[in-house]
């Protein structure tokens, strides 16, 4: 039970707004998790590969550009292909309400919208990763 939760914080697409991704990464680290941040403009393939190589428990995808309906399903699909069926996929950013059911149907566990607190994100990861993998 001492194993630390490993989280990949990923920034796909062309958008460079990384304030949210970096704050979440730091908050997860401060909460005792091991965090790998991909850096900017990663393709879905690069993100899935990093998730496999780093053997993470959760992936936090930060996206503010409106391209989430294209990019997120592809990442989920690649994770399935890689056999990472129990990795917890979270999305944060500017995601309209009406797009959330579609993303969840693709395998996203939760979507954190603008104004979400980092403590809620930490709590969600702890609850869902602990009950599953650890």
């Amino acid at each position, binding site marked *: 039970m001492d194993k630390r939760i490993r989280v990949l914080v990923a920034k796909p697409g062309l958008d*460079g707004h990384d304030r949210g991704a970096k704050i979440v990464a730091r908050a997860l680290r401060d909460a005792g998790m091991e965090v790998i941040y991909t850096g*900017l403009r990663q393709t879905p393939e690069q993100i899935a590969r990093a998730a496999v190589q780093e053997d993470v428990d959760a992936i936090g995808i930060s996206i503010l*550009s409106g391209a989430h309906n294209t*990019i997120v399903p592809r990442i989920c699909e690649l994770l399935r292909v890689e056999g990472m069926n129990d990795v917890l996929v979270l999305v944060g950013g500017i995601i309209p309400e009406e797009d959330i059911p579609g993303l969840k149907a693709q395998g996203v566990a939760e979507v954190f*919208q603008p104004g979400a607190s980092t403590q809620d994100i930490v709590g969600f990861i702890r609850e869902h990763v602990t009950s599953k993998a650890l």
Partner: protein
Amino acid sequence: MNKENTAVMPGSVEAPEDRSVTRKPGPGNGHAAVSAAAPAEFTTLSGVPIERLYTAADLAGFDYQRDLADPGEYPYTRGIHRTMYRGKLWTMRQFSGFGSPEDTNARLRYLLKQGQTGLSIAFDLPTLMGYDSDHLLAEGEVGKCGVAISSLADMEVLLRGLPLEKVTTSMTINSPAAIIWAMYLVVAEKNGADWKKISGTTQNDILKEYIAQKEYIFPPEPSMRLVVDTITFGAREVPRWNPISISGYHIREAGSTAVQELAFTLRDGMEYVEWVKRAGMDVDEFAPRLSFFFNAHNDLFEEIAKYRAARKVWARVMRERYGAKNPRSWLCRFHTQTAGCSLTAQQPYNNVIRTTIQALAGVLGGTQSLHTNSLDEAWALPTESAVTLALRTQQVIAHESGVPNAVDPLAGSYFVEKLTLDTERACWDYIERIDALGGMVAAVEKGFPQREIHDAAYVYQQQLERKEKIIVGVNDFVTDEKRPIEILVIDDTVAHRQSDKLAELRKTRDCARVQSTLEALGSAAGTDANLMPYILECVRAYATLGEMCDRLRGVFGTYEEPAFG
């Protein structure tokens, strides 16, 4: 927050009961109703401590001529013009761009019809990153955050029917700024508009991209060379154009404090001045066309002090450090945009109030032009009705509030003058630290401004989570309402239409001419020639943005941010 604090802060005695009754617990915060009745300490939004009362004692040694002077006089603390808004109101310039060039052209015409007085164009992410709409990496992003422009053909549609000699156009484009500007210039040329008469602004501020916005393509050195090329070309060929808008806006949006925004922006400006001087141009030949762009965040007085300090510091820097003789070189002319990052997805109508207060800060601070954000922008690009309301906000301030009647109406306030002095001093401290690091390019390569901003952003986030700072509707006064407004949706048919147009263009243009102009651009990039004439030739041949950027990537390489801390 607790008795000890309220006891030493007499001004807040009444607040606790008054406010707590209306408060509702935030999600996961059962104790919220009894918390945060008064702040634990009184600070600006950026965390600068504020005294209960300011008096003449705070301005000991204050000298009117040295610290303020009349409006239109050095050091311009009170404004760059003697008559300010009596002579000319600020330009009302709503930033807009979405979908196809046709969509955005219609929005720009609509805004002019509603009484907007300048244009401002937003480009989509593929355009900002130098990719054509049909590039693999553009998938899902075409037309989403701005308008998609891949070639002169798109620019012709974007600007169709707009009076280019009469209206000033601002374009938010950075890494490929030289290319997009060249497209604008060629459209003007084809319409018979004189380059000597057209006016507008290209943002073209690459340093703040490395620092905050992160839409860079090439490494810093060749990027700076492109900026220098546009500034020197502009000074000679398009003398009324502002070839750069040195921007603190994005620095603030990334989470900086007000002082960081100010200091990093002015130090960026100094870096550009040094580079252009090194390229052999006299400072007074180009400095009058340098322009600035600041954020207007929630803290009214902190923002006003920032703008006043900006003018004062820039005037000193230009006159004393760079020896500029022309008074026009000393002026910090700036555009202001209300703070996008202050908008909340929750209770979006509150955003109208925030934006009004922020816009007022810009006007009281003496801005030359203003963009007011729309209430729906925490969700999406704005709808037509939302952007109209945002424009009306400016019109009400301009024509109903009476605020523009007197120049710099807050001058002489003990509080505002002290805050302005303190902001100025803190700004100089940062400038000295960056000088010690070897200038802004060196500081960026060391990750200095990036780290400072990230730390400030993290501190602010923690303050929100501890409710030391309150955002109405987000961490206090929370309701369960669903989104009460419609939002703009941009579907993927834009991407298909743009791809079809590009395929058609590639078939019908003179391919030999495209190839030869691209070859010439690639060769020139390897020399120290000014690249603007080469880019203009590529544009005239209908070479695409992606093709030109690919040539430059081949010569300059690309940049990836190192991992900082």
